[in-house]
């Protein structure tokens, strides 16, 4: 980018500058002897062309073009803003349905469904392990009947819906298709995303059911089914979010997430799918933490690397297979229970990071999430934070405005290099599933998490309001509480459902499901049939548990 003569001048100038500042620094030392990024990487006081000497504009290219460093659309937010997608769901389908309608009224552009833990782990509300968990962290869905209530009055051909569901993703997607059908909306018209990323469940999030192999088969069955029947659906959201929440660094978030992505592509290609038939529907999900510039660099690094991987490693031809689209959520683990109002400011910084990094959709956390599920008021402030950035900050007026900054380009390259080191290491271990089974990825994340905790406790890392600038506080008021009778209501509904439906049909559909699971044909059509007969989630996952077995976690500290 710079010719030799210019570079010599820069280097000469830099030497003089360093010489000059040296004596100043001797008299007035800096606040710290070394400065670190949010992820603990050393940051220099000044970046110059010397830090991006190798940088060539063709390395990053133009937005909407390979390698998509600057964004996946040519005009980014000048065309369309990101989708403001607030993750919500609690208690019963009725309650959650009300919250969705409220969010849509308030300008939220897409729905994002949170399911309770029994649903995420494939248990009905009346299972013994569901006790105390029903409706707590999301909505309880036991059967198609609940799903019909959840989307009542919401036109599924108009909204796009993201569902945070992994191990039983096939079942919830089938329920969504069945609800749409009842609304008269064909599956070709449905838009949305299922998370469907089992590898990061093993790594960081914990809502796995089946062992790796059948889980990967379910995922590739979904890829294949959707490529024909639900062509506008994002079939997976390969998630770094939870990896980061578990304590990883920014570079680990990119490295481990893309390694998971590679594993899914390899699995699908191995079943005979052509890469360009399913890869355009792959999507990603990243975190946004407080170190604004590091985060922006992270998103740019992830896009660039994925484009290279898809093109070079998998021979993708369709540009859409190479463009990394992603959802962002602000970092839950950065929120403090102390002085929760401060969290609004953190979320605003994180929102800027996601937007300057070119996100396609965003969930902003509410200030009270270190304490409980958010109230409607605090959710509104979180949504308004996005709207202020979108309509008032001006950062949406031009594409990738931080490009060309010596620091941003150097940092983007650094994160790419570090992430690639992790990917190479995971390749050497035999791929992401193996690197998870032997605990390598979990161990790396745990080490980073523990290091972070130590820094906070020694005060080397300052968290405002928590380990510095504390005040005496009263216990927070007005926290959202989930009605404890939800569990009983769901149980009663199940009793009614089992009495009302045609149980002979349910048994036949479950038997067909068992046969499909034992064989190699695509399980999606039979799951869809079972769902339509009002077989419950627990019954369907129960059959799959019997055929596939359950995952055993590798526990290490």
């Amino acid at each position, binding site marked *: 980018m710079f010719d030799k003569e210019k570079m010599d001048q820069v280097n000469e100038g830099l030497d003089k500058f360093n010489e000059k500042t040296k004596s100043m620094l001797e008299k007035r030392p800096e606040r710290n002897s070394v400065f670190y990024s949010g992820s603990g990487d050393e940051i220099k006081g000044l970046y110059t062309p010397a830090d991006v000497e190798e940088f060539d504009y063709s390395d990053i290219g133009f937005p909407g073009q390979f390698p998509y460093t600057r964004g996946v659309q040519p005009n980014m937010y000048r065309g369309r803003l990101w989708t403001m997608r607030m993750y919500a769901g609690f208690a019963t389908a009725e309650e959650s349905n009300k919250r969705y309608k409220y969010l849509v009224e308030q300008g939220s552009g897409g729905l994002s469904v949170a399911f309770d833990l029994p649903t995420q782990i494939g248990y009905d509300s009346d299972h013994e392990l569901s006790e105390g968990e029903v409706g707590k962290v999301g909505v309880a869905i036991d059967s198609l009947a609940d799903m019909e209530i959840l989307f009542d009055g919401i036109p599924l051909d108009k909204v796009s819906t993201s569902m945070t569901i992994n191990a039983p993703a096939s079942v919830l997607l089938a329920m969504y298709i069945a609800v749409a059908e009842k609304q008269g909306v064909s599956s070709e018209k449905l838009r949305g995303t299922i998370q469907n990323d089992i590898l990061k469940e093993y790594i960081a999030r914990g*809502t796995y059911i089946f062992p790796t192999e059948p889980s990967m088969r379910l995922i590739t069955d979904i890829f294949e089914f959707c490529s024909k029947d639900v062509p506008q659906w994002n079939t997976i959201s390969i998630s770094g979010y939870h990896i980061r929440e578990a304590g990883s660094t920014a570079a680990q978030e990119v490295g481990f997430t893309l390694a998971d992505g590679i594993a899914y592509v390899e699995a699908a290609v191995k079943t005979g799918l052509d890469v360009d038939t399913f890869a355009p529907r792959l999507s990603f999900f990243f975190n946004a933490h407080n170190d604004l510039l590091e985060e922006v660099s992270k998103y740019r690094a992830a896009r660039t690397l994925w484009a290279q991987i898809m093109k070079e490693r998998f021979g993708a031809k369709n540009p859409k297979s190479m463009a990394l689209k992603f959802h962002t959520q602000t970092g839950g683990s950065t929120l403090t229970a102390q002085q929760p109002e401060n969290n609004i400011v953190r979320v605003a910084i994180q929102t800027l990071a996601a937007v300057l990094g070119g996100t396609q959709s965003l969930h902003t956390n509410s200030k009270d999430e270190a304490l409980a599920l958010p109230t409607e008021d605090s959710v509104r402030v979180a949504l308004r934070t996005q709207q202020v950035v979108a309509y008032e900050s001006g950062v949406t007026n031009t594409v990738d405005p931080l490009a060309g900054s010596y620091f941003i380009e150097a940092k983007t390259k650094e994160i790419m290099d570090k992430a690639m080191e992790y990917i190479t290491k995971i390749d050497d271990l035999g791929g992401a599933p193996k690197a998870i089974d032997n605990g390598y990825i979990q161990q790396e994340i745990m080490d980073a998490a523990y290091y972070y905790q130590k820094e906070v406790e020694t005060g080397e890392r300052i968290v405002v309001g928590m380990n510095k600038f504390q005040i005496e506080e009263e216990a927070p008021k007005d926290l959202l509480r989930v009605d404890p009778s939800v569990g009983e209501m769901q149980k009663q509904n199940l009793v009614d459902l089992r009495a009302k439906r045609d149980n002979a049909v349910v048994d036949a559909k479950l038997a067909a499901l068992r046969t499909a699971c034992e064989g190699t044909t695509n399980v999606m059509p039979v799951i869809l049939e079972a769902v339509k007969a009002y077989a419950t989630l627990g019954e369907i996952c129960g059959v799959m548990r019997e055929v596939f077995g359950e995952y055993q976690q590798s*526990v290490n500290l």
Partner: protein
Amino acid sequence: MDRPIRVLVAKPGLDGHDRGAKVVARALRDAGMEVIYTGLRQTPEQIVNAAIQEDVDCIAVSILSGAHSTLFPKISKLLAAQDASDILFVGGGVIPDDDIPFLKENGCSEIFTPGTPTTVTIDYIKANIKR
């Protein structure tokens, strides 16, 4: 004290958020305690049985899903039923302040909420184990 303090760090319920549990487990270990970590999805029965079998001085459970008011009292009851109430029982996680009195009335000695330094937990366990 002849032998190091033994602690069972446990994740009850279906909650998969184990960063806190693992960080605390490691901190306790670094403080010289012997730590057994159960992994995810443990029932109260499994936790109490493991505690007795491992002859621990303390059970430290972590939960972020909101199921604490159901699961913590169950653990206390099972400990009492097994004549093992001498085992110190502490909890942590996303637990609203308003719920803490109820949990303490029901056998949990102390609750550590988000932002608690691990040193506070370590000191509490050292000061309160019953032996």
